[in-house]
């Protein structure tokens, strides 16, 4: 008898479980939808959300990118191609910088790898086009006139190589060693 009872209880439990779930969904039916009406209402995305990629400039208005190839090396879809070049004053820059957004998966690894904070992902996610070739963004398309998320960082103030100016003028550097010094 006990066994039979438990079968019935099991059945009851099952039915109650079902009823519970039906109750939950029914309750939801009368809740106000939480959907945002996207094209009519656009939420402000956090600055760190990962959308279209830009190349920023340093506070002095120079290109931040030094064409170190780390972004292209780390890119899991190989969508970044660069060629470095050198300015007369020794500062390095990308001769060309191409991102194939048709391949980009917006993973943000390039941004993480970038030692100069040049390459940054923006919250701009509305990014669709009719032609695949239109997704090929060159440096001119990527370069912006602001510092992006990091307003103050200037890589060349920290690097050991000097462009313009003299050695030893960077942050946390001693003046250059004078080889002919008489000091011991």
């Amino acid at each position, binding site marked *: 008898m006990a066994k039979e009872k438990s079968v019935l209880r099991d059945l009851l439990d099952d039915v109650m479980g079902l009823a519970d779930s039906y109750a939950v969904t029914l309750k939801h039916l009368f809740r106000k939808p939480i959907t945002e009406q996207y094209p009519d209402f656009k939420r402000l995305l956090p600055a760190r959300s990962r959308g279209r990629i830009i190349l920023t400039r340093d506070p002095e208005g120079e290109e931040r990118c030094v064409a170190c190839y780390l972004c292209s090396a780390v890119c899991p879809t190989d969508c970044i191609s660069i060629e470095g070049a050198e300015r007369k004053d020794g500062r390095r820059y990308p001769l060309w910088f191409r991102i194939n957004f048709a391949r980009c998966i917006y993973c943000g690894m390039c941004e993480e790898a970038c030692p100069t904070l040049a390459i940054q992902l923006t919250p701009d996610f509305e990014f669709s086009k009719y032609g695949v070739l239109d997704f090929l963004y060159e440096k001119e398309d990527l370069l912006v006139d602001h510092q992006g998320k990091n307003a103050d960082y200037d890589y060349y103030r920290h690097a050991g190589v000097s462009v313009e100016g003299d050695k030893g003028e960077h942050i946390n550097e001693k003046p250059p060693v*004078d*080889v*002919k*010094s*008489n*000091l*011991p």
Partner: protein
Amino acid sequence: MLSEELKQKLRTMIADAESPREKAVDVMLEIQERHLWMSDEAMEEASDLLGMSPLELDELATFYDFIYRSPVGNYVIHVCDSAMCWLEGHQRVMDYISIRANVPIGGTSPDGLFTLLPVCCIGYCDRAPAMVINRRVYGKLTPEKIDRILDKLAGENEFHPPE
């Protein structure tokens, strides 16, 4: 730049040596006797005499403290800064000379008389604090003693200014 007479003297000096290279430091010290310090031109001429490349000579010159590759005054004051002298007041001595003779540490006084440099141990620990001026050692320095020494040197400035 070097006078012919000096060059001749150096040549004989070098000729004595088994290999010219061993006289390199002596040659430079000899030039310093006359010119106070080793300018680039002096280095080049000396290296020619020694049959070394200027760089090889410069390796030696920049290695040794008593060969000066930058202009110095007539009297180069080397104040010992090793442990004993330092305990006995090396810094006080430096500061005092610096103020007394109006010479910055590592630099030369405006009258071109004194150059003040630190030096590592000169072996006069028993008479610390000590200093060397043109190969003469002075120990147990006190302000009065320094005054006397400097006044004497300034008075008997027989050195010619560098040619």
